[in-house]
């Protein structure tokens, strides 16, 4: 097993290198990160050039890539253009643990992520828990009564949910629960941020602010998960060993929850493990609509103002998470299912 894990991790190195180079090149052709300074009348042309030199934006492409990897504290640049090298590099590069500095906020990149990540995890994990609980109930219920009225209605709903862009669901929810409820004089829900604008930072307020984003993220996922759980449960319920259990006279509840669910849960657990890294990249659209200060909104803001140091780390984090959780899913599968062995 250890050998297997080591081999998989080693295999991930070229993959991550490929992604790094690809994203690095993509960001280099995306434009000038300091373009926004050109519109600012307070910034003098000379300062702009100084800043460009300090960030190494005028270096040749390979030099910039090496700088990103191992830093530039081993060389001295000519910042003011007088021909003599005068500003020593300060970065250490990502391979030496220096993630760099955000051009947008001038904060260290790790601080930027430390602010955004917990908020996204709070939202994403809540959604995941809600989705799993609701989808398990719906999936098992409909698997036990396939093609019943309830099942058909849920099939219809999931078809509609699959066909809906997430922002449409979010906008609908806002329209109903925030705007119409307010117009009708009912208690309505807030539509943006994590806490009250007046500074009320209680748990109550947080939960009120989470309801709409959680709902809009959950609905589509519930549709997908419940269909999947229904399909795997149906497959298991029609197998021989369940018929044997029935024939032996076991009570139905025991058969369903102990015998059937145990086997059906294998592919479900894999699915969940594969979906977890998706949480890290944040819900770009939902976080934007509800101004949730998480990873998705950080990504959009960094993209709008082009902040390469943040974007590079963002893509790396998500790619590492995808690779890791694929491995986790495979290991879980091997641990839970004695028929599967990796050598």
């Amino acid at each position: 097993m250890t050998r297997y894990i080591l081999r998989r991790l080693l295999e991930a190195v070229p993959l991550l290198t490929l992604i790094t180079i690809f994203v690095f090149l993509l960001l280099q052709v995306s434009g000038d990160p300091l373009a926004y300074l050109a519109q600012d009348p307070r910034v003098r042309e000379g300062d702009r050039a100084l800043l460009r030199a300090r960030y190494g934006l005028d270096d040749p492409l390979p030099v910039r890539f090496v700088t990103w990897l191992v830093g530039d504290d081993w060389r001295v640049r000519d910042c003011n253009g007088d021909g003599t090298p005068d500003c020593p590099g300060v970065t250490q590069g990502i391979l030496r643990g220096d993630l760099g500095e955000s051009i947008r906020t001038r904060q260290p990149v790790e601080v930027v992520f430390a602010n955004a990540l917990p908020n996204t995890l709070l939202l994403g994990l809540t959604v995941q828990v809600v989705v799993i609980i609701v989808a398990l109930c719906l999936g098992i219920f409909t698997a036990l009564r396939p093609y019943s009225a309830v099942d058909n209605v849920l099939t219809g709903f999931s078809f509609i949910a699959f066909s809906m862009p997430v922002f449409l669901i979010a906008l609908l929810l806002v329209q109903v629960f925030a705007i119409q409820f307010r117009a009708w004089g009912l208690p309505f829900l807030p539509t943006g941020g994590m806490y009250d604008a007046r500074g009320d930072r209680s748990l109550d307020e947080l939960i009120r602010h989470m309801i709409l984003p959680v709902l809009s993220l959950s609905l589509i996922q519930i549709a997908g998960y419940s269909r999947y759980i229904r399909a795997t449960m149906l497959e298991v319920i029609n197998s021989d060993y369940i018929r044997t259990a029935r024939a032996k006279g076991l009570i139905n509840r025991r058969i369903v929850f102990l015998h059937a669910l145990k086997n059906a849960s294998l592919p479900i657990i894999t699915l969940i493990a594969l979906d977890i890294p998706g949480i890290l990249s944040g819900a770009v659209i939902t976080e934007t609509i509800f101004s949730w200060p998480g990873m998705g909104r950080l990504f959009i803001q960094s993209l709008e103002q082009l902040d390469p140091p943040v974007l590079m780390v963002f893509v790396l984090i998500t790619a590492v998470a995808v690779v890791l959780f694929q491995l986790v899913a495979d290991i879980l599968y091997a641990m839970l299912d004695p028929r599967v062995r990796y050598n």
Partner: protein
Amino acid sequence: MAAIATLNEKKPQPESLWQMTLRRFLRHRMAVAGALMLLSVIAFVIIGSFFFTEGYANRVSLDRSMYSLPPSSDFIFGTDPVGRDVFARVIYGGQISLMIGITAVTISVTLGTLVGLVAGYFGGLVDSLLMRFVEAMLSIPTLVLLLMLSRSLAGNTSTFNFLGRDISITVVGIVLIIGLTSWMGLSRIVRSLVLSLKNQEFVIAARTLGASDVRIVFVHILPNCVAPIIVTATLGIGGAIITETALSFLGFGVQQPTATWGNILDRARQQVDELWWLWLTPGFFIVITVLAINFLGDGLRDALDPRMRQN
């Protein structure tokens, strides 16, 4: 001899593959409903364009009293914050959105099929290089990849002339971006099919007869991969339409003045509460269209390849 001839005439013609497929498809009520729904949306965006010109749909009004009007008998879907008729924009936006969906899928299906065929048939180094590349693409969340690629489109106002219409150049950008980021799934499906097909007797027979690699791949193997390709393509159109609307909604999609179902919604983002008609109307058409496509794809899957049927 005559007896044999009459025997042959009396014998009912066996159903061809396509007749069988058509019969299975027509039995699938939802799929037929989906096809009809899709046809009516297409008819709507085509017939509608005879009543309004694109110039009218894209004309920004200087009269402030025309801005952000709620639905009325004059403008049945209301007007947007610069006084354009949302009804006309939904019609022209629909044409662009559907066109984006179809062309983007053409690109992604061509690419996915080619990569899958090459990787599966030739194997070895080519296969592992291509599959590592697919893995790398799949390790970046799709929306993140899409947004990073489409960033350069924001604010681009140049247009090109297509069939006498001025269309934003960003339409081409979006088509390429969606097409180039959505082929990986299909390439894996095709590759695994090719792997199981390439050592079967009919392929070995063709090779023994001296058929070239190109002929084997395109004449003998490709036709056996058609079912999943058609299904993926159909469902992919719906996915591409949703992707386009999501990108446009975030402001990284097709730029003004060209309308799409996505960028009609864009302005609603800032004023969700006041301008409900601005997102409800295109939203309705998006859902109807994608729903129809999903029904259609589901029916095609059952009809073309009963083995792929999912519960």
